[in-house]
C-alpha cells in the first residue's frame, strides 16, 4: 500500500464530512444549481488532464488527455455559466 494512500484517505474522509455538512445546509430550492455547481467544481479534473496532455508522452495518452481537457473544461465553463444564470433568476418579492 503506497504511503500516500493513507493521507489521501484522510483527506477523502474529512472532505466527505465537510461536503455532507455544507450540502445538507443547501435549501432544496437551490438543488438544481447545487448540482450544476458541484459539476463545475468536479471539472477540476481538468488539471490532471492538462498534465497528461501537456506531457505528450505517447500519441495515445496525449489524445486521451486532450479529450479529457476538452470534456472537463466544457463542464467547468458551462457549469459556472448556467449556475450563475439560474441563481440570477431567484428573486424575492422585495427585490422584484
Amino acid at each position, binding site marked *: 500500500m*503506497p504511503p500516500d*494512500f493513507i493521507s*489521501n*484517505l484522510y*483527506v*477523502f474522509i474529512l*472532505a*466527505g464530512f*465537510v*461536503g455532507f455538512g*455544507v450540502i445538507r445546509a443547501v*435549501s*432544496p*430550492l*437551490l*438543488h*438544481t*444549481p*447545487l*448540482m*450544476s*455547481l458541484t*459539476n463545475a*467544481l468536479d471539472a*477540476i*479534473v481538468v*488539471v*490532471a*488532464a*492538462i*498534465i*497528461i*496532455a*501537456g506531457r*505528450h508522452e*505517447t500519441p*495515445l*495518452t*496525449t489524445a*486521451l*488527455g*486532450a*479529450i*479529457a*481537457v476538452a*470534456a*472537463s*473544461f*466544457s*463542464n467547468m*465553463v*458551462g*457549469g459556472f*455559466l*448556467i*449556475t*450563475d444564470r439560474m441563481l440570477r*433568476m431567484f*428573486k424575492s418579492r422585495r427585490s*422584484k
Partner: protein
Amino acid sequence: MTELALQQYLDFAYIVAVVLFVLSLKFLSSPLTARWGVLAGEVGAALAVIVTLFNPEVAHYKWVLIPLIIGAGVGVPLGMVRMTAVPQRTALSHAFGALSAAMIGIAEFYVGTAPVTRFEMGEISLEVIIGSLTFTGSLIAAGKLQEILPQRPIVYRGQNIVSLSILAGALGLAAALVVNPAHAILFPIMVVVALAFGVLLVTPIGGADMPTVISLLNSYAGISAALLGFVLNSKVLVVAGALDGSSGFILSVIMCKAMNRSFTNVMFGAFGQVQTSAAATKEERVVRSASPEDAASILGVANSVVIVPGYGMAVAQAQHKVRELYDLLSKKGVDVRFAIHPVAGRMPGHMNVLLAEADIPYDRLIEMDDINGDFPQTDVALVIGANDVTNPAARTDKSSPIYGMPILDVDKARTVMVIKRSMSPGFAGIDNPLYYLDNNLMLFGDAKQFVNSIVRELSGASAAHG
C-alpha cells in the same frame, strides 16, 4: 526557482482552490449569497487551472490550449441552454465529467513509467470502471431526457441478472489485472465491459425516476474524480470528488425518501419498472369536470390558492402563463403559493428553477413538509401537470404501488382543481383516486392553453367589474 519550490507553490495554490470550493458550496445555503458561491468557485477553478499551466511537466502547450479552446466552445452553449433543458444538460455534464475521469485513468495506465503495483492496478481499474459506466449511463439518461431515446423503461426478463453479470465481468477482469498486472490486454476489455454496463444500468429506468438517477450519476461522477485523485495522488481531486460525490449522495437519499424507495432498491436498478396497476376496480365513478370560466370564478373568490406544479407544466411550457395567473390573483389580494414536491420534474429542484425563470419570487415556492399542514385552510389547490405526487392512495391504500410515498395533501383543500389532458393514468400507470373526490374538479386540456383561458377569463372579469 528550483522545481521543488515551484511544486510547493502549485500545491499551495491548490489548497487555496480547495478552500474556495468549500466556501462556494457554503454560500449556496441561501439564495441571497448563492451568487457569491459561483464567484468563489470560479476564482478557485481559474487559479487551479492557471497554476497548472505553469507546471514544468506541461511542456507541449499545443495539446493543452487547443482542447481548452474546444472545451470552452462546447461549454458556453451548454451553459446557455433554456431552463427546460437543464435536466438533460446536467446528465450530459455528468457524462463529460465521467468521460474525462475515465480518459485520464486510461492514459495513466498506458503511461507506464513506473512499474504498476497491484494496489495501483486496483485503484486504476476501479476508477476507470466507475468513470466508464457513469459516462455511458449519463449519456443514456441525457438521451431519455432529450427524448431521443424512449422515456419508458425498457425492460426484459432476467434483466437484473444479465446486468449484474456484466458488472461482475468488469470487476472480474479488474481482479485478474490486480493478480497479474502484466495482462495489459485485459484492460481495454474491462473498459468496454464497464461502458456496456452503464448502458444496461440506465436503459431500464423510466423518465419519472430521473431525479434519482441523475443524483446517483452525479455521485458516481464525483467518486470517479476522487478515485482519480487517489491514483494520481492529487489532493485537490480527492477533495473536489468527495464534495461532488457527497452532494450527489445526499440528493439521491432525498430523492429516494421522497419516492419511498430504499437505497438498495435504487442501487440495484430494480426501479422504474412498469407498475402493472392492480386490476382497477371498474365500477363507474363520478368525475366532475369544469370549464375555464368555472375555474376562473372559483379562483376569483378564493382567499388562498396553492399551485402544485409537475413535469406536465414543464412539458407544456406553461410556467410563464402560470406566472400571469399568479400576478392576476396576487393583485386581487389572493394569497398564492406553490407547493414543491422533491421529485416533481426530472431532476432535484427542477420546478424551482422553472418558476424562478418565470419570475415567480422564490419565497412563494414552499417545500412539501412546510406546506402540507396548510392545505386544510386552503381554498383552492390547483394541480398543473402533477399526478403521482398528489395521489392520496399513497396515504391510504396499502395495495397501491406508491403506498407510503410522501405526497402533497391537496385532497384536504376545500376545492381541488386538476389540469390534465385526459383521465389516462400517469406515467407509472397508477390510478389516482383524487380525481373522483367530491371536492375535485377536472380541468381537461393542455396546461398552457387552459391556464391561458383562466387568465383571460379573470382579467376580462376584473376589467368588467373594475
